[in-house]
């Protein structure tokens, strides 16, 4: 079984790039390389995180969705270097399908929502379909994680996990809550 399949089947999305904010203080030496990924583009001067190739792949993966998916992004204005990019990235992903919507919330201002969704750090994305999928992504799902994340969005909208029937049967008998936590990196 491939990594893709395991990741897909478990609803686990491995992770990504720590980019520096466009308006962040002068980038440290190591950040300059990453800065190039986060550029200004288009006539409107809008910020972009994804390239045309990634956007095209996301549009393709998210076309003809049967149901709807909702991305709930928690950010903070202060002390969150990646929150700006996270918001741009999630807007770009949501723009790939009319069935994918985005809600951006402040963790401190909307702490009851954060508590309800079990989110305690930023940037965080809660992935919801017709019901809560239970999937939370902390950080930026870019690079290796991007495709997997987009596929998770698709499965959230479809409400159908990519699991063997035996796995579904067994999970039906699960009595306790279980949290699967996966630590990942972009490189």
């Amino acid at each position, binding site marked *: 079984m491939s990594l893709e399949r395991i990741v897909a089947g*478990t609803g686990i999305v491995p*992770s990504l790039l720590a980019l520096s904010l466009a308006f962040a203080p002068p980038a440290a030496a190591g950040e300059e390389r990453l800065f190039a990924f986060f550029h200004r583009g288009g006539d409107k001067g809008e910020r972009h995180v994804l390239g045309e190739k990634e956007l095209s792949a996301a549009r393709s993966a998210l076309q003809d969705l049967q149901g709807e998916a909702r991305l709930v992004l928690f950010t903070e204005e202060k002390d969150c270097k990646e929150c700006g990019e996270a918001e741009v990235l999630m807007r770009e992903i949501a723009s790939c399908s009319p069935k994918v919507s985005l809600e951006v919330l402040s963790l401190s201002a909307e702490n009851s929502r954060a508590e309800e969704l079990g989110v305690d750090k930023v940037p965080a994305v809660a992935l919801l379909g017709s019901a809560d999928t239970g999937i939370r992504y*902390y950080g930026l799902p870019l690079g290796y994680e991007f495709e997997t994340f987009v596929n998770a969005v698709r499965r959230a909208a479809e409400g159908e996990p990519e699991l*063997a029937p035996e796995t579904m049967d067994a999970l039906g008998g699960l009595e306790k809550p279980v949290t699967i936590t996966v630590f990942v990196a972009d490189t």
Partner: protein
Amino acid sequence: MAIGSDRVRAEIIDIQTFPRITRKHRVSAIPKTFINYDDAFIGTEEEAEILDRVMRAR
């Protein structure tokens, strides 16, 4: 599995964004997966193996 069961939750944490929590759980290689922060494995496992770990979780 998170989509397949409302008792399963899946958290993905970027080690570069969250170095403190990464250190706290002594993550020295990735991907590293924890089940209820009790059982853990590095790398990937077959679906059946992950299911087994989830069903045995304390």
